């Protein structure tokens, strides 16, 4: 089976989008002010890949592909690509007139350097995928060939800027990457260039006049404003000082009020690629949560509808299991995990829980999470648990979760569009290791499921993968190793005259290439 998709013009992309804004002709000019929260530690996307960094650096750096809201690949630096029938060879053809911000030419050599040298050293998440890669070659200036050792289903899903940003070889080759001075003045190929960063205040980007797509970008200047306080961020939008509130920049409580304002639009699109999925870790290693009945009692105690309504403004959905509905191979037909206090009490009675204090770790990411933990504690207390909140800051949370020093702990993780990339990592036995809060922290062990994950990842057939993943979801939901909560809905709030703000499944993190302001 050969897949071949080629797109040439921006209008073609726009046509493929489901967003309604393209009826108008884009207008050039204007300044866009966005909130950035928290202030990113660095803008060098090759070194730091957290949310804020990616949001700003997504304008500066690009990768070979982008993904639409259905997670289908779209052209970016690669104008076309070809996957061999055996699923082992991926050939990318690059745009031929792309230049770095400092004027140097962007070539296939840069791609090889970025992936094989730079990112292989600095990017742990990509490194995990690169184990499947046999070789990366640049037969000519505009062609890059990836050869795999064996088929890897989700491979075409890793060519996104946050996973595989293109790094300028002429700047970084042979240097100490982490301490290169140029990290403070990032050079990419993206639609906007880095201009100035006043720490604690704002990051200023300006239009890349030499961008390879004629006419783009439309905006002249972009400011990412650093406003550390949620209420102040809301005020900044209200008083017109910023135009865009990306997901998570204001407290959820403020969302209804802000979205009710004039000339204000809201979308929860642009998160499909990440598929932020929240759950409570349950400690399967030791303590009361080792008993499946206790875990089920917890699961059915949780009034997630209330949380969705009171805390998340009905943005997002109830999770039905380990896989987000926006992630590929989702299967909703799994055993019910809904709110049922009576059932919860029954499971609790059947369990060997004998009244010990359950230590619940909230996620130290602000008000909503804190409130959620408080509501959850109350839910559990009403079922008959004795629960104590353990206050931590981010560092303490990381440490406790990484060291399995908890009974219940809130968390949420991205799924990166494919179960093999973002789901299996938290359920397979091989990923149980102290020290990291992002692996199989719960300590879920099921050899049968492990085998299925293995099989699904290397299958080249989507149909076969779907079947395997459905099977996995069924088994895991029945084991309740963790208590799944919500598929989080992060609303992007913006002035309605800002058009084409979110055009891909990665949202604003994919850069403001297409955005324009209606005058």
């Amino acid at each position, binding site marked *: 089976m050969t897949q071949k998709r080629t797109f040439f013009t921006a209008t073609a992309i726009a046509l493929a989008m489901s967003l309604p804004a393209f009826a108008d002709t884009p207008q050039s000019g204007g*300044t866009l*002010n966005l909130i950035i929260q*928290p*202030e990113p*530690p*660095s803008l*060098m996307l090759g*070194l*730091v*890949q*957290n949310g804020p960094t990616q949001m700003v650096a997504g304008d500066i750096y690009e990768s070979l592909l982008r993904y639409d809201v259905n997670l289908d690949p779209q052209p970016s630096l690669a104008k076309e690509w070809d996957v061999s029938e055996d699923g082992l060879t991926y050939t990318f053809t690059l745009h031929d007139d792309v230049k770095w911000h400092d004027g140097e030419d962007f070539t296939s050599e840069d791609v090889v350097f970025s992936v094989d040298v730079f990112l292989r050293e600095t990017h*742990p*998440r990509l*490194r*995990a995928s690169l184990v499947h890669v046999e070789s990366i070659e640049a037969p000519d200036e505009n062609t890059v060939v990836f050869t795999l050792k064996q088929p890897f289903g989700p491979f075409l899903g890793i060519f996104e800027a946050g996973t595989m940003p293109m790094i300028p070889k002429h700047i970084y080759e042979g240097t100490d990457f*982490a301490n290169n001075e140029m*990290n*403070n003045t990032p050079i990419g190929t993206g639609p906007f260039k880095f201009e100035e960063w*006043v*720490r*604690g*205040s*704002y990051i200023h980007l300006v239009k890349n006049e030499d961008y390879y797509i004629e006419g783009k970008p439309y905006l002249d200047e972009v*400011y990412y*404003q*650093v*406003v*550390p*306080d949620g209420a*102040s961020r809301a*005020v*900044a939008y209200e*008083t017109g*000082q*910023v135009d865009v509130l990306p997901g998570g920049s204001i407290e959820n409580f403020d969302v209804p009020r802000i979205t009710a304002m004039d000339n204000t639009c809201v979308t929860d699109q642009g998160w499909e690629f990440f598929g932020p999925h929240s759950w409570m870790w349950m400690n399967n290693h030791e303590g009361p949560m080792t008993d499946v009945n206790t875990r089920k009692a917890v699961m059915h105690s949780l009034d997630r509808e209330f949380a969705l309504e009171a805390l998340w403004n009905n943005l997002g959905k109830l999770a039905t299991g380990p896989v987000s509905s926006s992630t590929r191979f989702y299967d909703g037909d799994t055993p019910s995990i809904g709110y049922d206090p009576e059932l919860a009490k029954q499971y609790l009675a059947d369990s060997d829980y004998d009244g010990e204090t359950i230590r619940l770790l909230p996620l*130290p990411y602000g008000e909503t999470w804190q409130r959620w933990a408080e509501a959850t504690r109350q839910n559990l207390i009403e079922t008959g648990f004795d629960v104590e909140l353990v206050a931590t*800051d*981010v*560092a*303490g949370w*990381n*440490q406790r979760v*990484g060291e399995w020093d908890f009974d219940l702990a809130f968390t949420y993780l*991205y799924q990166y569009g494919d179960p093999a990339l973002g789901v299996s*990592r938290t359920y397979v036995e091989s*990923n149980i*290791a102290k*020290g*990291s*809060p*992002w*692996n199989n922290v719960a300590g879920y062990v099921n050899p049968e499921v492990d085998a299925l994950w293995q099989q699904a990842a290397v299958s080249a057939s989507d149909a076969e993968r779907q079947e395997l993943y459905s099977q996995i979801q069924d088994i895991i939901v029945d084991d309740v190793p963790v208590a799944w909560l919500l598929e989080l809905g992060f609303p992007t709030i913006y002035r309605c005259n800002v058009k084409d703000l979110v055009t891909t499944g990665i949202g604003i993190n994919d850069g403001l290439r297409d955005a324009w302001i209606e005058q």
Partner: protein
Amino acid sequence: MIRFILARLVKAAVILLAIMIFNFLLIHAAPGDPAAVMAGEAGATDEKFIADLRARFGLDQPFAVQLWTYVKATVQLDLGYSYRQSMPVIDLIWQRLPATILLTMTAFVIALVLGVIAGVLAASKQGTWWDTVISTLALLFYATPLFWVALMASLLFSVVLGWLPGYGYQTIGANYTGIDRVLDIGKHLILPATTLGLFFMAVYMRMTRASMLEMSRLDFVKTARAKGLSNGVIQRRHVLRNALLPVITLAGLQAGQIVGGAVLTETVFAWPGIGRLLFEAINQRDYSVLLGVFFVSAAMVLLFNLITDILYVLVDPRIRLG
């Protein structure tokens, strides 16, 4: 006098050194491994990544070595490097410090000037409704939580009335220059500086009032009256000057509290100063930034104290010449 200042400087330096060691010990006693935090934010899962980070930040060195390195570097004003923010700590602080100094100094001046004026007024009109009103206000300000009054002020003046900007340091994206910029910053400064100053204003007011009343009872005031001096001259020249001595001492001591109060004010008003930097750094366990901010704020307090000492010397001949 130079001797006196030199002696104070040496003392300050010793305290500063002690603070360095103390801070280092304290913060390293904290749970939470900075490498784990950074790895987490990078979305990393593997051990190697964390180990690399630890090595890169010297976190794998013996404790004593880390301490010695820190003290040596701090003495040379090298406050380390924040890997979380990819910047030398001293640069981070330099960026934030002016905003904090602007805020605290303005608050301090507001508090001192208004506090002393109100205190003098209350003392000279002791027992009248002036005194009652001023003393009651002072009592209220003294009892009001700083963060709460900041919240209420921003609600009232920024949200409801829309008179003043309620957050930040300057109008976002306005890019004013010259006098416009000064005015813009000034406008942003009013609410945070006033709310921060309010508590201290109450302190200075009460102190000035009490001190004025106490001085009025002293013999030299009687002498001044016996000379036939007018009440105004007596109050100004004899009572106030003497009454200000304890106020100066207190003001110097309070300076440290103002820096602390700035953490709350800066958080509520999104003021980009070191108070906010401190709170962020604690949340992220950014050791080098934490140590740096602590060091700088303690140094600021010591500087304030030194200035107070010098002022005291200038005002009080008994210390200058005795």
